[in-house]
């Protein structure tokens, strides 16, 4: 199996790697693989044991003014909430965002790697990489690790010379261009709200509110989503963070508790 190991190349120049200094350190980039006849079984057991953090709701859509990207911030390990403040919207460069769904470590590592590759592209070609190009770089890497147990469901959103761009890329090797995506365990709920409220000619504020409400509704019904709903907007001059609201507080904003008049009040019992 020929793996694409370019993701592991160290960018630090190693002077004199052939002498004793790096003895015992891998000079060629490689992932340590377990020596076993049953790779799949080993991965199944290892993943059960380490229980990497996943479970999420993310969404992104293109509209008249650019791309809106939103996500929750909960990470769960089995039934335990390991964090309520995970950054699921990753800033690849000032003009491109990536979302995280699936294994947190897988997404973090490969998005960081993608950022490095995008920067190298800029230096080599004297121009920013397109969203098409960036998503293809990531998709090719993930395809080469297909079947090895990576769990990545990401969206690459950006604004390049051709205008706003949005791609969905996953660890099965899929890559789809589209205008509306939601990824994660809470995505069915988010799609319900997003699809019914979507119009191409929304203003930035309307689109942000739609994205925020979609994430809120997904966190309401999906146990694996929660925390803080972050909303980002990608425009012609790059991305800006529109809002970050605790979903518990959003609930009471959308459904305020109205004090109701008491009809019968229980009186004090005298004696016993």
């Amino acid at each position, binding site marked *: 199996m020929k793996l694409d190991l370019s993701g592991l190349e160290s960018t630090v120049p190693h002077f004199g790697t052939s002498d004793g200094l790096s003895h015992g350190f891998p000079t060629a980039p490689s992932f*340590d693989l377990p020596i076993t006849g049953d790779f799949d079984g080993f991965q199944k057991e290892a993943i059960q044991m380490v229980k*990497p953090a996943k479970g999420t709701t993310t969404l992104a859509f293109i509209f008249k003014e650019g791309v809106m990207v939103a996500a929750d911030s909960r990470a769960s390990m089995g039934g335990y909430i390991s964090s309520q403040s995970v950054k699921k919207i990753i800033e690849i460069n000032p003009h491109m965002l990536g979302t995280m769904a699936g294994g947190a470590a*897988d997404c973090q*590592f490969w998005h960081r790697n993608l950022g490095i590759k995008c920067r190298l592209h800029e230096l080599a070609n004297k121009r920013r990489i397109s969203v098409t190009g960036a998503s293809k770089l990531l998709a090719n890497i993930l395809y080469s690790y297909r079947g*090895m147990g990576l769990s990545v469901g990401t969206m690459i959103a950006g604004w390049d010379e051709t205008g706003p761009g949005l791609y969905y890329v996953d660890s099965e090797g899929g890559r789809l261009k589209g205008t509306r995506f939601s990824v994660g365990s809470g995505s069915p709920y988010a799609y319900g709200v997003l699809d019914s409220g979507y119009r191409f000619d929304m203003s930035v504020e309307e689109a942000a509110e739609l994205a925020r409400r979609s994430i809120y509704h997904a966190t309401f019904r999906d146990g694996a989503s929660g925390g803080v709903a972050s909303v980002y907007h990608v425009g012609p001059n790059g991305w800006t963070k529109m809002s970050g609201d605790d979903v518990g507080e959003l609930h009471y904003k959308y459904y305020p508790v109205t004090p109701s008049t008491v009809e019968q009040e229980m009186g004090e019992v005298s004696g016993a």
Partner: protein
Amino acid sequence: MTKQAANWSPYDNNGGSCVAIAGIDYCVIAADTRMSTGYSILTREYSKICKLADKSLMASSGFQADVKALQKLLAARHLIYQHQHNKQMSCPAMAQLLSNTLYYKRFFPYYSFNVLGGLDTEGKGCVYTYDAVGSYERVGYGCQGSGSTLIMPFLDNQLKSPSPLLLPAQDAVTPLSEAEAVDLVKTCFASATERDIYTGDKLEIVVLNADGIRREYMELRRD
């Protein structure tokens, strides 16, 4: 011939709990000193805390052989960094190095649940929490290990700080003083020891601040 399932696992769980709390200008890292395997105690005096750099300490629970290998690798990488850059590694840099080191073994993971604590480049306390394959984030407090499900809700109750993702941003560092944070940690472990069989014997507390590193011990229940 029927397929035989693997009856030897390269992993073991040596138990134990670790906690780290970030303060305004200090960081407290603590871990119990019990090392066990199954229902047996291997030793009551094992330190789970390792000094990686002047301003970074790592506490790890899980499989201590993997933890030892990880500590050696990080120490060696830090030495190379010092030779190349003529300075100590900062805590945020060490945090990313640890994340990458863990991910390089994505297909044969280190069974090591880590908390990294230290002072950032501005002298403020910082704590980074990890999963076994390298996903990490900076938090105001963190805990890992067999007692983490017992300790974490208590820390959430006492220290719950606004999420760094909120906009407008609010600072995540705890307003507690150093002495209060050390007291809080002692309370955490005293409680966790009551209900977790793998936590106990002795508590090792390391406090890192601008004056340096201070170590303190407290006896815990040995049953």
